[in-house]
């Protein structure tokens, strides 16, 4: 296999990273190019790094006449080789060795990058290269984002990275928990970020689990009935009419199947983290927020055997979050399918 370090553009990138990472690795490991990224799936700054690596590869590929795009698999290999992701406590060299005879779909660094790339796609920073499976290219927004430097969120002149990302997030049409792979490409009908903010604005707070059964379950936000159902479900949960297991059942997530429950639970984590890093939300302890009045409500909501324990923190909408929501809520979502007939 081609060693990405032999490619000059990647060599420079790797040299920069290695300078800072040269001593990382556990005691037994001979591979010193390992690092473990800090919360890569929920840190927007990590996505910017990944995108820059993908852009470097895209430029190299264009210069080499291989097309103005990047391969997901190649970028995943580069990120792994220059120390961009690894399983905690296991040297990448050994992990890669384990995966040597596996299919691509079973190589964890590739599947991890695919998930990250999918989020980049939802945000409009990369798009598919037509006619090439697993090949993508940076959109004009993606090319603009990689120009930002330094700590997230930074500024380029008067251009604010935070405003830039909020705009992308507000337009992000993401699949709900029940959407199938066919819907991922163009028939998105749920501005999940906006709808999450809408749910939070109802009482001013939301927990991760509540987000699963509301904004993340919404199939088509253009359907008023579904929007009402979402709000109704949240209200019934908080009034004590249903408990969390009932809410999961209503969303057709079998509460007895752990992967189904935890998989759905992981979804909002990323978006809620994005919201917090952009200053749209802040976290507060349930025992402290609103003089602890919520504690009993959540105790009742989770007073049943369930895969997920009672929440300890709530996400509260900030003044800035309310302002953004006010600006955005009058915009009507238009799906591509509306142009058919």
């Amino acid at each position, binding site marked *: 296999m081609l060693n990405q370090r032999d490619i000059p553009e990647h060599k420079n*990138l790797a040299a*920069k*990273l290695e300078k*800072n*990472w040269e*001593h*990382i*690795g*556990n*005691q037994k490991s001979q591979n010193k190019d390992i*690092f*473990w*990224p*800090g*919360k890569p799936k929920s*840190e927007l*700054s990590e996505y*910017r*790094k990944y995108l820059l690596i993908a852009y470097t590869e895209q430029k190299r590929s264009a210069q080499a006449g291989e097309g103005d795009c990047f391969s997901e698999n190649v970028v995943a290999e580069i990120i792994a080789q220059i*120390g*961009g992701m690894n399983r*905690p*406590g296991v040297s990448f060299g050994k992990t890669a060795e384990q995966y040597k005879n596996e299919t691509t779909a079973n190589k964890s660094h590739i599947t991890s990058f695919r998930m990250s790339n999918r989020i980049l796609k*939802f*945000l*409009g*920073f990369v*798009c*598919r290269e*037509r006619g090439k499976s697993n090949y993508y290219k940076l959109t*004009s*927004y993606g*090319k*603009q984002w990689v*120009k*930002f*430097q*330094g*700590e997230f969120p930074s*500024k*380029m*002149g*008067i*251009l*604010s990275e935070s405003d830039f990302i909020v705009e992308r997030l*507000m*337009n*992000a*049409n993401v699949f709900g928990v029940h959407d199938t792979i066919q819907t991922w*490409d*163009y028939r*998105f009908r749920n501005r999940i970020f906006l709808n999450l903010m809408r749910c939070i604005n109802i009482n001013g707070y939301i927990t991760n689990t509540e987000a699963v059964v509301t904004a993340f379950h919404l199939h088509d936000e253009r359907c008023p009935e579904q929007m009402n159902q979402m709000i109704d479900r949240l209200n019934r949960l908080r009034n004590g009419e249903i408990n969390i297991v009932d809410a999961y059942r209503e969303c057709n997530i079998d509460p007895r199947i752990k992967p189904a429950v935890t998989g759905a639970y992981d979804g909002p984590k990323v978006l809620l983290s994005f919201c917090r890093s952009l200053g749209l939300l802040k976290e507060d302890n349930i025992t402290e927020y609103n003089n602890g009045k919520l504690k009993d409500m959540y105790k009742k909501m989770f007073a049943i055997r369930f895969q997920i324990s009672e929440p300890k923190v709530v996400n509260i909408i900030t003044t800035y979050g309310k302002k953004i929501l006010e600006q955005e809520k009058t*915009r*009507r*979502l*238009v799906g*591509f399918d509306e*142009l*058919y*007939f």
Partner: protein
Amino acid sequence: MSSISDLIDRAALLLALSESKSGLSLSELKKTFPDIDKQIKFLGKKFKLRIEGDNVSLDEKICFDLYQSIPSDILPEVEDKFRILISQPALSDPDDEPRKIIISKDGNLTSCINCADPPCMTYNKDEVFNAVDSLASRVCPDNLIQIDSDGIIQIDESKCTGCMICVNRCPFSAITLVNDVAKISRFTSTAADVKDVNLSEQRKITDELKVKVGDKPSQIYSKEDIKKTLDNFDKKVSKLEQNWDQDPYYVCIRNWLNELGLEAKYTGSPGKLRVADVTIDSPFAVGIEAKSPAESDVDIGAIRQADHARRQTASFLDKNINDVYAAAIGQGVGRGSNNEAQSLHDQEGKIIPIMTGRVLLYIFLKHISDLPMTPQDLEKLFSDFYGEMTLEEIKEFFTEYFSAHNMEGQQIETKTMEEIDYCFSTNGRQQRGSYSNS
């Protein structure tokens, strides 16, 4: 069912209408869309279009995004047509975004010029790649220095703790400590012109002015000023006021060490799997266990963690464990930790100094004023002392400093010793700030 070309035309037209504020000219549209009437009729059924004379505009706000709503199969065609319609390039290059630079009319360079890559705000921009230290580019520990919506550098003075890092980093001496907070000195509107430039011009002008202003003169502080700065920092970061937690406190320790000429990293952030909260890599290696005011004082556990941090740092750096130092730094020193450090020394020969933030800030202040430190001087902090750095140890450290620099017996030595007495001789628990007002 519509044909693919119809879908492409409608999508491009709808995107252009939603982007365009003043609307589009129908006669111009005809050049790109021969059957514009058909498409306008179609869109008119679904969206609120306003047609006035030759102008067509969208009378409602919609969310229809080029990259998030259009299928990838037809995206290039839609994008091409959309760009023609709104006649704009993909997106402006952020490097060309206008930035402000302030040019003094009389050549005076002691106020903020609004530098490119401002050193008061960010360390080397390449540090964005620093994966060990996710806050590598941060200069202000609490990230209080930002560029405002007008493109001007501002400090949130209400939260400033007076750690002096930005004061030291400004090449134009435009940041000073006034009433215990960092303040930016500004040109009056008559004394300077504000110019809009792009990034490369801003960098060029900044570099020229840096050369012009030359080396920054050292600022000499009186013992009263130093004590006030130390007390102020202790008080503001304490539990009673801002209750600094890991990120700002550890970054502050890292930055003081960096400003002292050492290569330090904040390695203790979540997900980094490192025991050492702050690591000094070069010119000598130290694994530091830090305790922020929000956590606790340096306790017995912290001393043991410091020793663990040393072992782990040695393995990371591929060094012999004896070549790596350990230290514990915090806002206060808890009960029993001094005894623990002493017993580790007496029984196992391990040297673990316990420093307060106050001691480190004092050394930093001396470094940037009248007693510049070399790495050899600083190494003694980690190699020659164990247990809590109290007044006597601080004096001993500076005695060694004067001896190494052949400055023994000079007036500055007497002055420094008096200053140390003045700054560190108060009751131990009070000087840390956390308890002084309780």
